[in-house]
C-alpha cells in the first residue's frame, strides 16, 4: 500500500508540468477510477484541503490522500512520491548546469504541452462543477453553492486573495446552509 501510494504519486509528479490543478484529472484517474481508494466526494474534500493550505497543490493533495489511506506513513509515502520527481530532475539539471529551456527541442515540446496542460485544468474545472452539482438543479443547496461559485469567481477576477475567499465561503456555508 505504501509503495503503491509512493509510485502512484511519483508517476503523477513526473507529468505535473506547471504544478497546480493540472494534476486533478490525474488524481481522479488514478486514485478514484483505477485504485478505487476514494470516492468522488472524498476527492473533492482533498482538493479543498489542498487548496486552502500553503505548499504545492500536488504535494498537499498527496499528503491528504496518503493520510486517509494509510495514516501518517501513507502521507509521507505519498508526499515523497510527489516531491521526488522535482528533486531528481532539479539535481540532474543542476549537475549538468544546462539551460534546458533554451534548446529548441524543449521549446517545441512545450509548445504542445502548454495547450494540453490548459486542457487538463479546463477538464478539472468541468469535473468540479459537475461533481458538486453546481448549476444542476433548482434546489436551495444547488442554487446557494452556485451563488458561492459565481461570487468567488468575481472575487478572483478582482484579485481578492484566494485564502480569504475560501475562509469567507466556509463561514457562509457553516452559517447559512445548515
Amino acid at each position, binding site marked *: 500500500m505504501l509503495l503503491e501510494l509512493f509510485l502512484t504519486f511519483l508517476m503523477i509528479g513526473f507529468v505535473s508540468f506547471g504544478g497546480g490543478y493540472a494534476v486533478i484529472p490525474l488524481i481522479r484517474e488514478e486514485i478514484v477510477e483505477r485504485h478505487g481508494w476514494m470516492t468522488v466526494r472524498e476527492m473533492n*474534500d482533498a482538493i*479543498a484541503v489542498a487548496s486552502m493550505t500553503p505548499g*504545492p497543490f500536488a504535494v498537499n493533495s498527496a499528503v491528504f490522500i496518503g493520510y486517509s489511506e494509510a495514516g501518517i506513513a501513507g502521507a509521507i509515502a505519498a508526499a515523497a512520491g510527489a516531491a521526488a520527481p*522535482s528533486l531528481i530532475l532539479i539535481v540532474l539539471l543542476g549537475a549538468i548546469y544546462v539551460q534546458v529551456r533554451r534548446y529548441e527541442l524543449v521549446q517545441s515540446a512545450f509548445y504542445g504541452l502548454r495547450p494540453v496542460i490548459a*486542457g487538463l485544468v*479546463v477538464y478539472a474545472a468541468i469535473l468540479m462543477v459537475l461533481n458538486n452539482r453546481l448549476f444542476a438543479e433548482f434546489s436551495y443547496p444547488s442554487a446557494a453553492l452556485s451563488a458561492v*461559485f459565481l461570487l468567488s469567481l468575481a472575487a478572483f477576477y478582482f484579485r481578492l486573495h484566494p485564502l480569504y475567499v475560501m475562509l469567507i465561503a466556509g463561514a457562509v456555508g457553516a452559517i447559512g446552509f445548515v
Partner: protein
Amino acid sequence: MKETGHRNVAFVLQIFRTFLKISPFAFGGGYALIALIEREAADRRKWLDSRELADIIALSQSVPGAVGMNAAMLIGYRLARLPGAIAAAAGVLVPAFAIVLTLGIVLLQFRQVPEVRAAFSSITAAVAALIAYAAFRLVRAAVVDKTAAFLIVSTVLALYFLDVHPVFLVLAGGAAGMAAKALRKRLGKPAKAAGRREPVYKYDDYFIGDGI
C-alpha cells in the same frame, strides 16, 4: 551566486531555516512562493540577484512539479549542492505537510458534523471557481494559434468522452509540439516566435497556477 562551502552544515541548516520560515505563507500555490523567495533570498540574504532569479524561474517552469518548490530546490542546490537542495525541499515541505495533515485530520474527524460538511461544500464551490479562473487564464495564455486551440479542445474532449488517461495526453502533447515544430520547419514556414510574451510572474496574480 554565493557558493560557500557546500559541506558546511551550518549553512545547509540556514537554507533549511530560511525556506521553513517563508513557506507557511505561500498560500494559493502558483508563484506565491516565488514572491516570498524574492523577498527573502534575493533582497534580504542576497543569495542571488534578479537576473539569476529570472533564470531560476524559467528553469523551474521547464521541470515537472510546482514552480515554487522547483525554484527552492534549485536555489538550494546552487548554494550547497545536494544537501542544499534537500534542505530547501524540506523547508518548503515540512510546514505544508504539518498544516495539511492537521487540517486533514480535523476534517476526517468532524466530517459528519453538519456545519463542517456545509462549510466544506461551500469552500469546494469557491475552489471550483478558483480552478475555473485558473483554467480561463491558462487557456488565454496557451491559445497562440490554431494548433494550440485544437490541442486544448481535443484534450478536453478526449478526457470527457474517451476517458483517456491524462498521462498519455501530456506525453502526446509534448510529442505533438515537437512534431508540429518539425513539420513547420520542413514546410519552410517561418519559425513562430515564442508566441507570447515570456511569462514573467506578476505579483498581483501570483496565486493562479500560471503553470508553464
